């Protein structure tokens, strides 16, 4: 029998420490929706999503009510659209994005990910068409998220795609300039993208995944932060143990929700993603955890080490709590979505270079970082290349979600609202990488031995 202290602890975590399930994401294969006629293909996509995900939101709400745990987002990920769209004759893939958007609106989800292409070794015709459609697709839809995988540890980095992505990010920023270039917040450029990630904007339903599945992303930086307050001044061994125990509890909630959702929807359970996903709410910040470990601000020397400890302990605690772990699984460090990161970036303690170092030891990458609107496409491409190189060499997922906010310069703020928060425009190194980017070609896959 559960004791009273345990009941109160759970309630306190939910009420005061922002414990929630960040997302239930239904992955749906659209591989049977191809057609040479774009209209027929779009209709098939819309019908299939509505058929499979019709009960997703209602089921999520029922689980929320019964267990008393908020499930913040209900989302959908689909087969990378480049694969589905390739057999149609149309050059313009924006109608696919619009069909996805209509379906997302119809079933009531917050976001739908998968306007994506996997181009780590090269582009097919369909991939290229999809890439060229991204800016307009993101500008003309509300719920659709896009991602492009430009590198893997086994294939190296496709620098032609990296070059294109710099231009695509810029164009997306321009087309959505009226909303703080928000379109870029829905676009992720990956190296080593995972196929079962439930988190947006990078979710897609990979080609090795089943027909349909349920993946769940947990959260809970606030709970870890509160737990660490109780071990103030103690050694880092104690800190690591405390994080592990807390991560176990958080993940067990995710596992429970995932199993319930899977059985009620009659869809197999995929994975629980063990990520600490912050929100802009006070007390729900990854930066706070690092500062609680003893740093005066995130960004201080020691930040990378503290983050490495946190990231590893979250995985160690979470792995035992779930039957299947996957997705991105690690601490997220999105600047605009974390009150502590926003404060540190505004004060100048946190720089893009430090964030880049931090991404070597955690999930996922340079995330939700606002930069000056006049940053060149080549510079953005070069930042993408740096981040992809970290992922490629270290055999991990890395990603870039930069927002060159049109009309804003260093020192300005941009407001996105809701879970996306607000961000100070951060300075970017102004040395010019243009010649390097214009070379194109591929960066070969790295050695897997002689590691040093």
């Amino acid at each position, binding site marked *: 029998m559960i004791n009273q202290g*345990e009941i109160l602890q*759970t309630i306190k975590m939910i009420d005061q420490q922002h414990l929630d399930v960040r997302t239930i994401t239904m992955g749906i294969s659209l591989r049977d929706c191809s057609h040479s006629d774009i209209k027929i293909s779009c209709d098939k996509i819309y019908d299939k999503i509505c058929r499979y995900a019709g009960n997703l939101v209602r089921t999520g709400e029922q689980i929320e009510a*019964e267990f008393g745990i908020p499930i913040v987002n209900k989302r959908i990920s689909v087969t990378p659209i480049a694969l589905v769209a390739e057999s149609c004759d149309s050059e313009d893939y924006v109608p696919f994005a619009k069909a996805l958007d209509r379906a997302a609106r119809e079933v009531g989800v917050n976001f739908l990910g998968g306007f994506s292409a996997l181009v780590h070794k090269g582009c097919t015709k369909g991939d290229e068409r999809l890439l060229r459609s991204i800016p307009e697709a993101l500008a003309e839809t509300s719920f659709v998220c896009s991602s492009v995988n430009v590198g893997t540890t086994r294939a190296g980095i496709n620098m032609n795609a990296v070059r294109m992505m710099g231009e695509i990010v810029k164009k997306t920023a321009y087309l959505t300039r009226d909303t703080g270039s928000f379109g870029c917040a829905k676009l992720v450029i990956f190296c080593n993208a995972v196929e079962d990630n439930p988190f947006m904007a990078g979710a897609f339903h990979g080609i090795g995944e089943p027909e349909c599945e349920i993946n769940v992303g947990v959260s809970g930086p606030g709970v870890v932060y509160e737990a660490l307050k109780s071990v103030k001044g103690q050694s880092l061994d104690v800190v690591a143990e405390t994080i592990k125990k807390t991560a176990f509890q958080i993940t067990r909630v995710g596992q429970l929700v995932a199993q319930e959702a899977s059985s009620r929807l009659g869809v197999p359970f995929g994975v629980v993603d063990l990520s600490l996903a912050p929100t802009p709410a006070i007390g729900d910040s990854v930066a706070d955890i690092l500062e609680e470990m003893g740093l005066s601000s995130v960004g201080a020397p020691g930040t990378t080490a503290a983050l490495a400890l946190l990231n590893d302990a979250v995985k160690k605690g979470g792995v035992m709590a779930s039957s299947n772990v996957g997705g991105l699984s690690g601490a997220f460090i999105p600047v605009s979505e974390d009150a502590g990161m926003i404060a540190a970036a505004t004060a100048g303690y946190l720089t893009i270079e430090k964030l880049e170092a931090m991404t070597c030891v955690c999930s996922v990458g340079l995330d939700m970082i606002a930069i000056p609107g006049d940053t060149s496409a080549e510079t953005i491409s070069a930042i993408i290349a740096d981040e992809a190189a970290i992922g490629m060499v270290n055999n991990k997922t890395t990603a870039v979600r930069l927002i060159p906010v049109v009309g804003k310069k260093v020192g300005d703020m941009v407001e996105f609202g809701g879970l996306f928060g607000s961000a100070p425009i951060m300075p970017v190194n102004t040395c010019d990488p243009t010649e390097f980017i214009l070379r194109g070609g591929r960066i070969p896959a790295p050695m897997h031995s002689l590691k040093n």
Partner: protein
Amino acid sequence: MHAFVTVVGKDKVGIIAAICILLSEKNVNILDISQTILQDYFTMFMLVDASECSTPFAELSECLSALGQKMDLTIRIQREEIFNAMHKI
């Protein structure tokens, strides 16, 4: 289906009575009750069986929460599994 009803708030006359009446109207069986008063704050835990409940769980939860608001208390109902998941290996 087992669930825990938890009640937290300023102590006053009739808290248990009001909750028991509501649960009985909804055909929810009370299996166990424990309560303490900590610095004037009334804290009660009730283990209930809601499998024969006459309304959907979400509605029962709303009724309890509305009763809580009326009595200036926080009343929750949550299925037992969430506590087991978090606190039992």
